[in-house]
Every structure is written in structure tokens, then in C-alpha cells.
């Protein structure tokens, strides 16, 4: 048969669903509008109902670049509100992690490679900068101006990224994760054990120059804060430009389906290597600023805890979204490093989360009111009974101070020696939480009241007294809540898993 035997491509045949024939000129009619309306259904469902959804939509109408500008201005104004030394240091740490998360987003979010050795590039940047800016090498040391040393370190990290990527580029999924994790640990071991005369072993390198060059020298924390804001915004801008170019599309195509990408002219291996190199360069940039601000580097600075924080930020913010990665990292670090260190601040966060969850999830209003009244009543009643039995049962007083402490004083029971009771309470609380998940309807509501009270008891007796443990638990809890409420992360786009 030849081509002429084809039925003529005119509009004679209309399918059962009113489908327009192919190649027909763009028709306009009511069903087109309906079709579009149906097709946009998913988009509309992305938004929350009521005014919250409208606010979301309004925010979405603001373009990416204006939003970045607003965020930059907010970042610049923040220190003028009178941040103390501690807050400023939290801000600096948060910005360093945000820079790392934005770089990791290239590898994990865009190119879809689970790189667990990412922190090694951060460490490489810090150590390389330290060597170029201290008395470690040569008789008088190299005190290279930062205008040169930072770009040199970044280029070196890019090359290192290529070298690590070269053997790893054919690995996918679990294998890539474990191989890169080895690389990350190898870096820590390397700095701990190799050439202690230069790298300093566990004692690290101290006496590193601050960022200097062109006649300027950055010494104050405030100047580092501003430098990091500028660098973060600039990096985000560059990565946005890259993300919307052919390179960014190729990264995402390789993430989605490497075989299909290769069949569509994309050189998969080279594209993966580029992602590795760019990620490494951003990590090294963060490393140089980190080293200069700390004036010292130690192997433990580049171990797994940092990796966990960067990943927590990336996932919380939404992998694949540049703004999400930065926002997530800032949120995680401010909560983890800032709020969860002081009992009162972390108390506000803890009770705030409980109140928010109860407000958001409990319906109808009658049930919500019932739970709130019952919980408050239960607390005062339990406190009064405990005091009647023995004054020592309530002699501890809550860990929280200030207004929160005042409010809780006659509500939550804190014994004079809270440790044992708190530990038992913690185990019981876990059991009650599991029961809460299993129960349905009325029984769940009923159990919710003592659970909230017990949670408060455990918080005031043991949790807030051990911030180093509690903040890990809290970050875990926040991630669990996030996964249930918004799996795509704060600013991430909804994704479907593709089964192949």
C-alpha cells in the first residue's frame, strides 16, 4: 500500500468523545474550554481551600526573580533588627548549610543521583582554602588573596567532582549511595590520618586567614553574614539560569529516564559528570567561607551530621527546587541550631507544633473545643491531685521559663527529681502514640487528651533538659509530619514515581 491510499486527513471522522481529528486547525468551542478546565483540575487541587489557597495563588503569581529579590532584601534587613552574636552565628551556619543544600540540589534534585559523599567536597573546599591561607605550607605559608584562592579552590573541587564522578557515573541508586558514602568517610579518615604535619590530624588547621583581598578584610560576623547572603543569592541566580537552560533540562531528563534521555540525543554520562562537578564547586565555595569564618578546620566538621542536616533541609524544602533547598536548609538550621538550644524557645516550638496540629487536624469544631478544654482541665486536676498527695511531686517546676513557664507552672506535674519519672513517661508516651495511630474515631479523640498531657510532662521533665538529643528527635518528627502533610516538601513540585 502506498501513502495515497490513506483516508484524507479532513474533519469527517469525529471520535465518540468528540475528539477533533488530528492536524485540524485549532478549533474553539465550548468543549475545548471544558477540556482545558478538566485538564487544569490537577493544578487547582494543588492549592489549599479557602483564603489560604488564594494567598498561595497570589504568591505563585509573583515570579521567581522578584521572589529571590524579596528574600535577598529580607536577608539583608534581618541583622538590622538587632540580632545578637548568637543569632548572627546561627544565621551564618544556616546560610552555609543553605549554600550546601542548593549545591546538593543539582546532584540529587536535578540529576537524581543519591550522593552521600557530598560533604567531602565541602571539606575539600575548607581544607584547600585553609592550606592556601595559612602558615602550613612552605616556610612562611601561602597567604594567597581570597580573590584568587576561592576560585582556585572551586575549580579544584570541580576537577575532584569529575574524578569522583568518573567511576561512579555508571552506578545508580543504592550502589551510588553506598560508594559515595564511602568517599565521604574516606575524606574524614584522610584528614584525620594522612600527613599530620600539614593537615594537622584530629587537631585540624588553625590560624587560617579571614577572607581578604583588594584591600578589604572581613573580620566581623556581620560581614560574613552579608557575604554569605550575597553568595547564596548569586549562586541561586546562577543555578536558576542553568536550570532553565538545555543543561538543566538534560539533568532532569537523565533523572527521569536515562535510557529515554540517551535516545533523545542526551549524553547521559557527560551530563551526570557535569552535575557532580557543579555540585562540588558550590560545596567548595561554602567550605572556603566556612573555614575563613571559623579561622580553623577540623575533620569532625565534615562528618555525617552535616550531611544529615543538608539532606534534611533539601528534603524538607523540596528536592528539585532551588528556592526549596535554600528555604528548607534555613528552616532546619534555625530550628536545629537556634531554637532547639534554649529550653524556652524550643518549648514554644514544641507547644506551637502541638497546637497547630490539633487546630489543623481536629474537626468538627465541637470536638476541637472538647479536646482543648479536656486537656487543660486534666492538667490542672492532675496537678492539684499530685500536690495534695505530696508536695515533692510538683516541686520541680517546668524547664520553660518566662510566660510559657508561668502558664505551665500549675498545669504540668514536674517532680523534684524528674529523671526517672520522665524516662518512664517517655516509654509510655511512645506506646500511647502508637495506640493513637491504631485507634479510630471516638477512642482516638479520647486518648488524644492524656497523650498531649503526657507529651508535655515528658517534655518538661527530660526532653527539654537534653537539647542535643531532643533536637534530633524534633527534626525527625518535623520530617515525618512533612512527609504526611506535603511529601513534595515546602516549595517542591508534586512528583510521581515512575515504575519502569
Amino acid at each position, binding site marked *: *500500500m*502506498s*501513502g495515497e*491510499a*490513506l*483516508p484524507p*486527513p479532513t474533519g469527517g*471522522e*469525529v*471520535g*465518540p*468523545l468528540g*475528539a*477533533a*481529528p*488530528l*492536524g*485540524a*486547525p*485549532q*478549533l474553539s468551542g465550548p468543549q*475545548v474550554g471544558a*477540556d*482545558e478546565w478538566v*485538564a*487544569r483540575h*490537577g*493544578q487547582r487541587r494543588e492549592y489549599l481551600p479557602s483564603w489560604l489557597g488564594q494567598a498561595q495563588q497570589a504568591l505563585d503569581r509573583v515570579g521567581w526573580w522578584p521572589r529571590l529579590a524579596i528574600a535577598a532584601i529580607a536577608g539583608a534587613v534581618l541583622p538590622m533588627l538587632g540580632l545578637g552574636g548568637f543569632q548572627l552565628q546561627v544565621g551564618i551556619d544556616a546560610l552555609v548549610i543553605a549554600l550546601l543544600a542548593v549545591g546538593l540540589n543539582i546532584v540529587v534534585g536535578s540529576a537524581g543521583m543519591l550522593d552521600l559523599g557530598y560533604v567531602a567536597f565541602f571539606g575539600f573546599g575548607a581544607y584547600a582554602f585553609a592550606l592556601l591561607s595559612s602558615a602550613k605550607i612552605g616556610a612562611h605559608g601561602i597567604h594567597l588573596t581570597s580573590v584568587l584562592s576561592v576560585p582556585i579552590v572551586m575549580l579544584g573541587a570541580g576537577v575532584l567532582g569529575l574524578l569522583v564522578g568518573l567511576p561512579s557515573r555508571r552506578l545508580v541508586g543504592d550502589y551510588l549511595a553506598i560508594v559515595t558514602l564511602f568517599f565521604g568517610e574516606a575524606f574524614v579518615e584522610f584528614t584525620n590520618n594522612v600527613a599530620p604535619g600539614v593537615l594537622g590530624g584530629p587537631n585540624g588547621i588553625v590560624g587560617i586567614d579571614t577572607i581578604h583581598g583588594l584591600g578589604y578584610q572581613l573580620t566581623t560576623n556581620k560581614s560574613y553574614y552579608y557575604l554569605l547572603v550575597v553568595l547564596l543569592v548569586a549562586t541561586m541566580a*546562577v543555578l536558576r*539560569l*542553568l536550570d532553565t*537552560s*538545555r*543543561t538543566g*533540562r*538534560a539533568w*532532569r*531528563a537523565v533523572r*527521569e*529516564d536515562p*535510557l*529515554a*534521555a*540517551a*535516545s*533523545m*540525543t*542526551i*549524553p*547521559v554520562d557527560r551530563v551526570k559528570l*557535569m552535575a557532580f562537578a*557543579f555540585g562540588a564547586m558550590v560545596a567548595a565555595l561554602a567550605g572556603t567561607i566556612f573555614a575563613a569564618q571559623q579561622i580553623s578546620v577540623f575533620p569532625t566538621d565534615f562528618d555525617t551530621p552535616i550531611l544529615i542536616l543538608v539532606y534534611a533541609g533539601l528534603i524538607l524544602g523540596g528536592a*528539585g527546587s532551588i528556592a526549596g533547598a535554600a528555604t528548607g536548609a534555613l528552616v532546619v538550621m534555625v530550628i536545629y541550631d537556634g531554637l532547639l538550644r534554649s529550653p524556652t524557645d524550643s518549648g514554644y516550638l514544641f507547644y506551637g507544633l502541638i497546637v497547630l496540629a490539633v487546630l489543623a487536624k481536629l474537626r468538627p469544631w465541637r470536638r476541637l473545643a472538647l479536646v482543648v478544654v479536656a486537656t487543660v482541665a486534666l492538667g490542672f486536676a492532675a496537678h492539684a491531685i499530685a500536690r495534695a498527695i505530696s508536695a515533692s511531686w510538683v516541686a520541680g517546676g517546668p524547664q520553660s521559663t518566662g510566660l510559657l513557664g508561668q502558664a505551665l507552672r500549675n498545669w504540668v506535674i514536674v517532680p523534684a527529681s524528674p529523671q526517672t519519672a520522665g524516662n518512664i513517661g517517655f516509654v509510655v508516651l511512645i506506646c500511647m502514640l502508637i495506640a493513637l495511630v491504631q485507634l479510630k474515631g471516638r477512642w482516638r479523640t479520647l486518648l488524644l487528651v492524656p497523650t498531649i498531657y503526657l507529651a508535655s510532662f515528658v517534655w518538661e521533665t527530660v526532653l527539654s533538659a537534653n537539647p542535643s538529643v531532643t533536637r534530633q528527635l524534633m527534626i525527625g518528627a518535623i520530617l515525618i509530619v512533612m512527609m504526611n502533610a506535603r511529601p513534595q516538601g515546602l516549595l517542591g*513540585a*508534586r*512528583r*510521581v514515581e*515512575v515504575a*519502569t
Partner: protein
Amino acid sequence: MTTAEAAGPDIAVPVLSLAQLSLSFGGLRALSELDLTVGDCEIVSLIGPNGAGKTTVFNVVTGVYEPSSGDVRFAGQSIAGHEPHKIADLGIARTFQSLRLFMNMSVIDNVMAATYGGTRATPVESVLRLPWARREERRARELAEEILSFFGQRLAGYRWDQPAYSLSYANRRRLEIARALATKPRLLLLDEPAAGMNPAETHEITELIGQLREERNVAILVIEHDMHVVAGCSDRVIALDHGVKIAEGDFDTVANHPAVVEAYMGRDPEALAESG
């Protein structure tokens, strides 16, 4: 360059020619000594029962598998064992039997991703948005829009920024064809383009295949089980069974060929009794 044996009058130089192509996986012979040509702007259908080796032919041509022996020539140049992305660059594009779209990318990005090989801007040039990098990007977008417009209402403008996963099944198949076209192919390999489509959509696909050849000057090698499509669009039909070519010719000849009937239906029991 081999000459086309079963060429029609309008076919001069074969775009694709497989010569004595064999592929084995261990002891399993997936293809054996297969000869196949596709002429310029010709539409050839590849039919055969499940497991006959049809998709394997595609995988060898696109470089997913390296042939055990024999040669694959594209416009006279041997491409056996080349990397898939280089073969795609030369001008062979394909769709997949089980859809392999970039599901979490927008419709337009799916198509634009396939322009990678046709564009040159390095990451640095893209970030600096140099004038010619901008121009190249604009041209890629125009190409994508033009290709999507080819599908009319189905992939109309309001869908371009929606993620591919939000498309219906039939539209996903269309988008895969659109994506393949964005590589500017000379040869298009369609793997069961009408699978899972209703009769109206199947009819559309048949028309579309003809239109693609007329308007975009591509040769098309299509695997299809739906005989309406095969009858409606092919210049020539090739039947495979167990990796061996069992018949070749126009649709009627192949459809009535005893070997083809046997491959699909099994042997006539009476004939078996006679021969046995």
C-alpha cells in the same frame, strides 16, 4: 552500501539497512541473520507475534544493544555499537512500547530536552545568556512549539506547562512522538504507537503516520499489532518470528503468507496430520 532489494519504485537510497544482523543473549538467539532496509521517506511495518524480536531490532538500531554479528548502516554509515545518544544525533529517533516520557517534566520541556544534541551552548554560555545562546534557546522553543502544534488540539498550548504525568494515555503516546520529532530525525522508529488506544485514536495515529512522512520527510519503521494501522499506512510489511524474517512485501501478500498465518495462528492441524 547495500542496495534495497524489495524497494518500491520511489525508493533509491536506503536510510536504514541491516545486513545479516544477529544478536544472541547467551544461548538465546534473539535475531538471526536479519536483512532489512528502509528507504528514504518509506513507511515499513514490522509485525510478528510477541517475542518475535521486533523491539530487539529497535534496540540494536538505536544502540541499546550491540549486535553479535552483522552490520547496521544508517544512510550508508555503519552505526553498529555506537552510543545511543550519538545514533540519535545522527538522525534516528524512537518511541517506546512502554512509554518512557520524562514524567515529572512539563510537556514543553519533554520536547525541548530532545533538542540537546541539536544545540551547542555550554553551561557557562547558558548562564551568561549570551546573545547566540539565547537565540539557540529561542529556536529550540519554537521548534518544540511547532511540533506540538502539529498535534493540534491534543497537545494545545495550555498543556505545555503541565507535567507530562497529567496527560491522558493517548496524549502521552502523542507526546512521545513529538519528543522524538524534536531530534529532527531522518528515520523514526515507532514501537506500537496505537497500543492501548481506542478505535478513533487508532485511526488518528494511522493518519498521523502518513502525515509525518508527507510533512516532515521522515522514513518510518513501525512496530504494530493493530492490522488496521499496518494496512492503513505501510508501503511495505516485514514479518518476524523467533528473530527470523519470515515474509516481506505489501500488506496483502504478507498477511496471507502461510508462514505468517502459521506464526500467528499455529499450524493447521489437518496440514500437520498430512505432513506428519
